[in-house]
């Protein structure tokens, strides 16, 4: 009873080790632990003492875990960034491979990662085109949160465009959780976080959502873990961010399009804003594709920052047209530094390896 419980707990502890280390030694480690537990089965030892010894064996594993983890990390780091061995492909049909820094996403994965940008752009463009073309007013004013006059102002169908995008992002987050947070899923994570933040700060159609606005994202992750029946996706989320800090940059990058739209558009559409949104959508989606298709950290950083540089140039040029020169430029420059914040993790990681390999 205690033995099987401890074995199960040890198996969970094992999952925290880096993938390639686990591929190489995970099964052996588990076998050794099981053998060590059964080593206490000798005749003559009182059951209480035996159980205490078994518990001590497990706690020794927990106690030495941090040092062992660093050693395992160092080992994985020394292996380089090649393709992972096939041994772990059993997890979620091989999705584990997407956790590796050096792996390039397939075109299909890259498109899935660019989808939230494209969907957001398309939804808001349709919103604008409908308003400009057929004089349809959206049921909800995005900025002041008031319900507008018209046939579609029923509370049940308010916020059609942004809520629709939020729903897609939350579904992507659920799917990403099930798949163990591959690189494309960070776009959905980032955009879901943006919408959670956005709706938690304000009054919408007379409703203050507050912290409840985070519920859909939170629920998607919990549901994903329940369906996966494992905490492994969360471990992979942390591992992914630790191995490749640009994933977090990508999640922050996903803030750009909704932020640009909700900050600079007042939803009283004019044609130039539609062109601008179209341009931003294509550009940011292209940046997402380039990011996901890049093999190196530098390639990924350049993919994201390069797009922001183009947005700065666009802001400078667009300043003469719509009079939003400085807000657009300062916003994008602020974003440059914002996307580089996760590099602190990369520096810390580098420091840990430098120290542990001495």
């Amino acid at each position, binding site marked *: 009873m205690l033995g099987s419980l401890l074995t199960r707990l040890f198996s969970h502890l094992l999952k925290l080790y880096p993938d390639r280390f686990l591929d*190489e030694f995970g099964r052996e480690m588990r*076998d*050794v632990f099981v053998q*060590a537990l*059964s080593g206490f089965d000798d005749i003559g030892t009182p059951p209480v003492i035996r159980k205490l010894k078994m518990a001590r064996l497990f706690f020794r594993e927990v106690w030495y875990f941090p040092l062992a983890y660093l*050693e*395992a990390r160092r080992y994985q780091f020394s292996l380089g960034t090649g393709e992972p061995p096939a041994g772990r492909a059993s997890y979620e049909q091989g999705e584990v491979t997407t956790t590796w820094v050096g792996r390039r996403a397939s075109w299909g994965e890259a498109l899935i990662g660019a989808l939230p940008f494209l969907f957001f752009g398309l939804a808001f463009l349709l919103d604008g085109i409908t308003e400009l073309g057929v004089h349809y007013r959206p049921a909800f004013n995005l900025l002041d949160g008031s319900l507008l006059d018209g046939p579609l102002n029923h509370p049940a169908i308010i916020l059609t465009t942004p809520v629709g995008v939020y729903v897609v992002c939350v579904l992507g987050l659920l799917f990403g959780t099930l798949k163990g947070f591959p690189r494309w899923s960070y776009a959905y994570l980032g955009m879901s976080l943006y919408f959670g933040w956005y709706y938690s700060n304000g009054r919408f159609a007379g409703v203050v959502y507050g912290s409840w606005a985070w519920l859909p994202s939170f629920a998607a992750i919990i549901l994903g873990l329940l369906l996966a029946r494992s905490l492994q996706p969360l471990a992979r989320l942390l591992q992914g961010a630790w191995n490749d800090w640009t994933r977090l940059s990508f999640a922050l990058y996903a803030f750009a399009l909704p932020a640009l739209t909700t900050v600079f558009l007042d939803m009283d559409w004019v044609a130039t804003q539609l062109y601008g949104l179209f341009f931003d959508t294509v550009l940011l989606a292209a940046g997402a594709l380039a990011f996901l298709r890049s093999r190196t950290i530098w390639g990924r950083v350049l993919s994201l920052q390069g797009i922001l540089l183009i947005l700065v140039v666009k802001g400078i040029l667009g300043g003469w047209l719509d009079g939003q020169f400085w807000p657009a430029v300062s916003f994008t420059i602020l974003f440059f530094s914002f996307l580089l914040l996760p590099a602190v993790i990369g520096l810390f990681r580098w420091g840990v390896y430098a120290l542990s390999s001495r």
Partner: protein
Amino acid sequence: MINQEFEEVPPELTPLREPTFFILLALSKKRKHGYAILKNVETLSEGRVILSTGTLYGALARLLEQRVIRKSADDSEEDSSGSKSRSSITVVRERKYYELTQFGRRVLEVDINRMGTILATASRELGKEGI
């Protein structure tokens, strides 16, 4: 002979840490699997060094990487607990063994030599009186 071999061992490999030393010592006679190494280290160190599996396999990974030891497999019919199965339903699992390489033997020898030199120096300096 020892001096000649000493030159071949990179200086950063020695001195060995105590757990590493006992792991190599445990493998000096014959190849062993993980659990046997764990128990042997405990016996050799008279209970002073008790390795967790995490520490053991972290050390083994490093030693494999340094080519001080190598891994070999041995097919055997075992059940999931690793003991020989008595039932008709068995799981064939390759048991992994670890053994010292020639280079590993030199590393161990150099470290033993180093400790021997220290011990000899201390004995000579302190003489029969001791500290």
